[in-house]
């Protein structure tokens, strides 16, 4: 059996992997795992944690545990979708900017700058306000603010690769710019981008739940963690309403950050270079 790559042998990576795995299981199996219908308002209102409702009940008499479990089906898939979309949009735009340079680069990067000039939440707020509060619009809002960081990173990586010898060699062998981009450039930016994306799943989850917390995201009665924390703020001393969904956000984000951090260590170009040089000496 091949040994696990170094990154995976780190305990934090394992914790992150296990946590993320657990949450993914919850996403799939929430209906089986949840003791109650997350929308049913048939329990006593504002009951503290106890048998029958281990995380307590909320102001409408719904089971907080079931809502937290179902909340995973909202936040996690959306965060994944969001990250994939921003990766796609930012990646393509950034790759074009980096590879073609000139006005393409100028245009894309100036737009990215413009977006960067807004604090994320405020821009997302304006977008959500403009389009109405809903999860789709919140996703759109986060998308608007999230793609530029991918564009920037991709552009930087592509610019670095563009003048690398193997890319030039390809061009000299008659690759068109597109083929070069596809065959030589993109596969080599994918690794770092995936690390970024893994770390960004956490950020996306935080942003989405932040918007829902502000009332600009999920529509009720959807069990969404940010919105659940917001309803928890209405009842400071009924701590369970807000604390458990908050913990859910924390653990999900933490899981992906643990994973991403380990991946980044493994893919760190510095480390990679040293490893390469090491091999050279041994060979």
């Amino acid at each position, binding site marked *: 059996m091949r040994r696990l790559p170094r990154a995976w042998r780190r305990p934090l990576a394992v914790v992150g992997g296990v946590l993320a795995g657990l949450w993914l299981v919850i996403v799939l199996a929430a209906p089986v795992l949840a003791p109650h219908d997350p929308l049913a308002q048939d329990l006593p209102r504002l009951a503290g944690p106890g048998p029958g409702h281990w995380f307590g009940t909320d102001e409408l008499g719904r089971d907080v545990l079931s809502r937290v479990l179902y909340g995973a089906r909202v936040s996690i898939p959306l965060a994944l979708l969001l990250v994939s979309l921003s990766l796609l949009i930012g990646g393509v735009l950034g790759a074009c900017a980096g590879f073609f340079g000139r006005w393409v680069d100028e245009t894309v990067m100036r737009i990215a700058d413009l977006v960067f000039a807004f604090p994320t939440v405020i821009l997302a707020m304006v977008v959500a306000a403009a389009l109405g509060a809903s999860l789709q619009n919140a996703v759109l809002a986060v998308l608007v603010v999230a793609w530029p960081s991918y564009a920037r990173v991709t552009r930087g990586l592509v610019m670095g690769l563009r003048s690398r010898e193997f890319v030039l060699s390809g061009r000299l*062998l*008659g690759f068109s710019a597109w083929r070069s981009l596809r*065959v030589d450039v993109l596969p080599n930016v994918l690794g770092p981008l995936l690390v970024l994306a893994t770390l960004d799943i956490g950020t996306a989850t935080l942003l989405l739940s932040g918007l829902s917390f502000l009332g600009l995201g999920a529509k009720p009665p959807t069990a969404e963690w940010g919105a659940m924390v917001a309803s928890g703020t209405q009842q400071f001393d009924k701590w369970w309403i807000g604390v458990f969904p908050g913990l859910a956000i924390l653990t999900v984000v933490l899981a992906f950050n643990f994973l991403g951090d380990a991946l980044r260590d493994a893919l760190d170009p510095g480390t990679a270079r040293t490893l390469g040089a090491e*091999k050279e000496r041994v060979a």
Partner: protein
Amino acid sequence: MTPLPTSHLTPVPTPAPAPLLSVDDLVVQYRRPGAEPTRAVAGVSLEVRAGEVVGLVGESGCGKSTLARAVCGLTAPKEGTIAFEGAPVGPLGVRRRDPGLTRVQMVFQDPYGSLNPRRRIGAQIADGIRAAAARGDAADGATPGDLLTRVGLSADDAARYPQEFSGGQRQRIAIARALAARPRLLVGDEPISALDASAQSQVATLMRLLAVESGAGLLFISHDLSVVRLIADRIAVMYLGRIVETGPTAEVWANPRHPYTRALLAAIPQPDGAGLLPAELPGDVPDPAAPPSGCRFHPRCPVAFDGCDREDPQLVAGGVACRLYAA
């Protein structure tokens, strides 16, 4: 790896009438934001004939790589012309390179950067074979495996990734890829300077052998004069964006005429155990963005005389650009 013979130099073929590559009065500039552009190549003329190995030497920053890149169309010239087999070499744009130009191939300096780490080396060599096919050259039936054996590796290595090879091996793979395109002109931009001393002459000799074997011309760039001496038929000495002397290797070696060439040769320490300190050339290569007036070498020239700081000597028919030899 099998050590390659280093001694059987193919005899210099009689110069063909039409040059394969002719560079004429080439100027290449780098724009710098908010400053005068750098003239990295400042009026260079050079020819490479089929089957000929031209060694281009010069100190760091004198514009060797820039010249090489311009020859391959990777950098657009500011002035002058570059013709390959009589047709002009246009700069590389977004579209694919003119298939005819895939007859010009290049081997780069950095063995770690010249192969795509995400692709098997077989696939990368196959790109070269495909380039030749795309041009309409009849297939010669060579497979990546064959090419690998030709550069002294095993055919099984085709399925491996670049990371699994040493620097010297990678450079051989890069050469195999370039050769797969069956080039008529091979440009090597310091292809050996990143290698171990023991690997350097092996790889250099291999390049010469394979290029000449296939009847292609080779423009070999290096700052290591001893290697150039070993493989080049003709030598061109570059200083600060200009070629200051050119001529058959043995001639230049035995009888360097330009003061810079002389200094360069004298500075090479000989491993003869004699304990002779090499001669020193005072000063450094000036910034190409602000070259000295007149002869570019005059501030460092031990034999500069009155007027060298004003008059800019041109490369004369004798192959030297120095006022000492002005007619």
